[in-house]
């Protein structure tokens, strides 16, 4: 609540700044200038674009057009429909330390606008040939100035509509040393596109267009919300993998979108971090995203992440870096934890979360309806069996979209029910084999390795080993955390002869093994007696499994990795159903149920995927139906 109010105030102040209470541009006093982080503002075309687009946003623009010639190296134009600059203030706008956005150093403590230094236009003007054309709302005619290398060369009236156009030509024409640092056209263009993408995600309501030479690189019309914009930015195919997250603690609020482990990239280009809508690079924030995905993604893979952090302006210092690309938080640890937790929660599919109580299942409602609505069926697996416990992506929450429960994929007791499975109220959810009306099983084991099933709008292929590994890992995790687990007592207790190293490892970890339902006791000499094991453990193999775990634990101990992590990984890996094992229908049912009861069902602890979803739209595309 506090935070909503805060962001409301922030938005309103920015609007006020632009529209009603615009202050005239004034020179800042030297004392205030002293306190502003000084340094290079302009490094490359992308930083020019960033400054100019920020100005447009500060001016309340609803349409921003960026045109590049040769990636901005030759010419770069930013055009907006914002408040404009009164003609008489134009010369001042390109002066150093002249700004309309703050009045004095007191305002530095709480900055609501992007700009505050009065530095950007001057800095750009000093290293290029610049033209500013602008007309403010209450003027009949606009004005124009031309500047080269910082010197005003021409000043004349201009017939422009309301808004501002800034043309920057021959960047660094007078500073060859800096020009030498520019990269290839392609990489400069990519950098500009990245800046605009971030800004566009931060301002869904603003239309953005980026053209380079004769091609349109980005073209985004005004959108109602982040999801719609993210759709437009990443494409519908990626959008199906995105999940919304949000969270808040005192004075901090985070929201955004992350991709599930089903969509990753080999680098961080899909990660955008904004603090109070300001594009920034913060190691702490990207570290928090990394931490949220740590046991979910394989090394070298990165999820998409749009992270919007809103912090009361007094709790963050944006005045630490000349390009404002870095910020300093009053409480960095809190920011990290908030981001990590919120993302983790969104990946998590559990009832525990329940701020919003799950709606009671409405059954039999609509397996037919919705089949032909791509924007709904795209909501994929995630709005499939799992969403019942969760709010789901916002686009699946929209009122006109049927929610998960409409297709009856989650029955009472959280039993995973493939689409089409009849739900007989008298049926025992644990034991029943789902059958289609035609009497055909709805799980199908492929080469004794994969399980196929259908959900609304998609075919799902599950890897039996990877998923069982994920299940055992998470169940083991809970057990280690102290959740009571039953231990299946053995009729024939196993005696294990251990070597000295194994015995030493055993003695250290006996307690943790016990928590995970391995009931063991030293039996004299090097022998250990096993009386009980985790129920339904596969491949117990008369104790060989425990010996494998001890061996892995020994290795982990020598390499200094976290022993609990090692126990879990080893237990999950050795205990899981193997590829090639035949499963019965109830076993497949139980596997699916348990998989979707885990926190992060999409990948095994090593980051390999547990399931692949093939959307109907994808199939239709491949069969040339679309």
């Amino acid at each position, binding site marked *: 609540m506090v935070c909503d109010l805060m962001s409301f105030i922030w938005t309103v102040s920015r609007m006020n700044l632009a529209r009603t209470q615009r202050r005239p541009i004034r020179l800042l006093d030297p004392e205030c200038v002293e306190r502003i982080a000084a340094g290079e503002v302009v490094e490359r075309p992308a930083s020019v674009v960033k400054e100019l687009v920020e100005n447009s946003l500060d001016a309340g623009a609803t349409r921003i057009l960026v045109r590049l010639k040769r990636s901005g190296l030759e010419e770069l134009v930013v055009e907006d429909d914002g408040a404009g600059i009164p003609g008489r203030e134009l010369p001042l706008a390109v002066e150093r330390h002249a700004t309309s956005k703050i009045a004095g150093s007191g305002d530095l403590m709480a900055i609501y606008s992007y700009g505050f230094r009065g530095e950007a236009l001057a800095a750009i003007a000093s290293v290029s040939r610049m033209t500013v054309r602008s007309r403010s709302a209450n003027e009949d005619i606009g004005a124009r100035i031309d500047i080269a290398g910082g010197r005003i060369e021409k000043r004349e009236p201009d017939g422009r509509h309301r808004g501002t156009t800034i043309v920057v030509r021959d960047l660094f024409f007078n500073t060859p040393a800096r020009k030498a640092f520019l990269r290839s056209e392609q990489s400069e263009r990519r950098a500009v596109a990245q800046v605009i993408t971030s800004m566009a995600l931060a301002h869904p309501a603003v239309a953005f267009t980026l053209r380079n030479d004769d091609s349109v690189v980005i073209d985004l019309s005004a959108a109602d919300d982040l999801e719609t914009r993210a759709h437009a930015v990443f494409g519908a195919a990626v959008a199906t993998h995105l999940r919304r997250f949000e969270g808040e603690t005192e004075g901090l609020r985070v929201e955004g979108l992350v991709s599930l482990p089903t969509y990753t990239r080999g680098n961080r280009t899909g990660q955008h971090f904004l603090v109070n809508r300001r594009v920034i690079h913060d190691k702490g924030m990207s570290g928090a995203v990394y931490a949220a995905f740590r046991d979910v993604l394989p090394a070298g893979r990165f999820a998409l992440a749009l992270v919007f952090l809103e912090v009361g302006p007094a709790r963050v210092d944006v005045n630490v870096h000349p390009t404002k690309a870095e910020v300093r938080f009053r409480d960095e640890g809190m920011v990290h934890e908030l981001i990590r937790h919120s993302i983790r929660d969104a990946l998590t599919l559990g009832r525990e979360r329940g701020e919003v109580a799950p709606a009671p299942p409405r059954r039999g409602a609509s397996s037919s309806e919705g089949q032909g609505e791509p924007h709904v069926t795209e909501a994929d697996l995630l709005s499939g069996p799992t969403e019942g416990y969760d709010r789901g992506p916002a686009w699946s929450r929209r009122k006109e979209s049927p929610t998960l429960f409409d297709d009856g994929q989650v029955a009472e*007791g959280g039993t995973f029910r493939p689409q089409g499975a009849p739900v007989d109220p008298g049926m025992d959810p*644990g034991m029943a084999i789902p059958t289609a009306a035609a009497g055909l099983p709805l799980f199908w084991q492929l080469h004794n390795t994969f399980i196929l099933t259908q959900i609304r709008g998609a075919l799902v292929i599950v890897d039996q080993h990877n998923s069982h590994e994920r299940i055992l890992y998470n169940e083991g995790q809970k057990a280690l955390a102290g959740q*009571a*687990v*039953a*231990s*299946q007592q053995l009729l024939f207790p196993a005696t294990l002869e251990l070597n000295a190293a194994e015995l030493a490892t055993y003695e250290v970890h006996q307690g943790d093994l016990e928590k995970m339902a391995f009931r063991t006791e030293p039996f004299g000499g090097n022998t250990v007696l096993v009386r009980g094991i985790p129920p339904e453990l596969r491949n*117990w193999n008369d104790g060989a499994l425990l010996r494998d775990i001890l061996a892995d634990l020994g290795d982990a101990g020598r390499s200094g990795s976290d022993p609990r992590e090692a126990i879990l990984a080893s237990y999950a890996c050795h205990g899981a159903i193997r590829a090639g094992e035949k499963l019965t229908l109830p076993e497949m049912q139980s596997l699916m149920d348990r998989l979707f009861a885990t926190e992060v069902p999409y990948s095994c602890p090593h980051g390999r995927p547990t399931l692949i979803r093939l959307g109907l739209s994808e199939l239709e595309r491949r069969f040339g139906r679309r």
Partner: protein
Amino acid sequence: MKIQVQQTDLARALGAVANVVSSKTTLPILSTILFEADKDSLTLSATDLDVSVVTRLSEVQVEKKGKAAVPAAKFVPFVRTLPSDPVKIQLSGEHVSVRSGKARMEEPCMAPEDFPALPKVEDAEAFEMPGPVIVEMIRNSIYAISRDETRPALQGVLWELTPKRFTMVATDGHRLARVHREVKTGVKETRKLIASSAGLQQVMRLAEAVDTVKIYLGEHQLSFEMGDTTVHTRLVEGVFPNYEQVIPKGNERRVVCDRETLAGRIRRVKISADRVTNQVRFGLDGTQLTLAASGTEGSRAEDELEVEYGGEPILIGFNHNYVEDVLKHMRGENLVIALDRPDSAAIFVPGEDAKSDVLASEDLCLLMPLRLND
């Protein structure tokens, strides 16, 4: 080969052998049924190399002797649909044809020489017993076999034969079923062997309607002669664990309860049970047996039943699937459960007398509990 046989006889004979014919096999010859027409009889054989079934039809007119390996997939269903009239089967060249009235089918055959040599009944110790009795013995033990492929011995059923007693034991390490019957086995000294469950499954299927089954205890195989049909099955190699040692002698806490009632209560309570452990807790206090289950999602269920119990209160957990298996395979209205501790084996036997000698029971099942960490 040219023969004529009644459709009903042929269909029955095919039914006996077709069950071991496999449709998915890397050896195509195993998807056939071997027909051998001899003077005045027709012999049908099928095998999957582990289990073989051979059946002989004597009500048959053989016009011309001969052999053919007939693919079963279409032949068998075709014959089943024919009216109960005489059926003519003829081999011409590589094709076999079936004819009944105007109905006719032709199938390409495989070379009979390629059909694997079938085991013969070994000249071995043999004894007879009623079909329904051996079927019951198999049924009441085989459910407890292990599915662990690394332990073939536990995937089979242990046979223990003494001159007057026949015992079958199966276990998966969590539970154990022991069935014995007084049978004159004719063995001179105690014999132990492990029968393959696939073979026993065929016997269960075929022996039900048979008065007498003759069992040959070969060196490497078992043969079951059931009228005109014989099943051969290989013995399983390996060591069966010493099961007697794990049957507890001192379980003095005895519960007597109604089998159907208990089964009904479990069916109800298990709805809430944890999907991983399938645990249902049995709480005994006085004459009250409380069943309770709780799942990880916070679901809980409970029910009670009146039982006969004189011991100290005790709380013990079981995998409900195991208990249900036991209840399904016990005879009689009542059963006696003999308990000791929450982490030691429980004994289930049919009967109504709490003081009876449970260890001597003809049908006995041991269940290891699921113990909750505390």
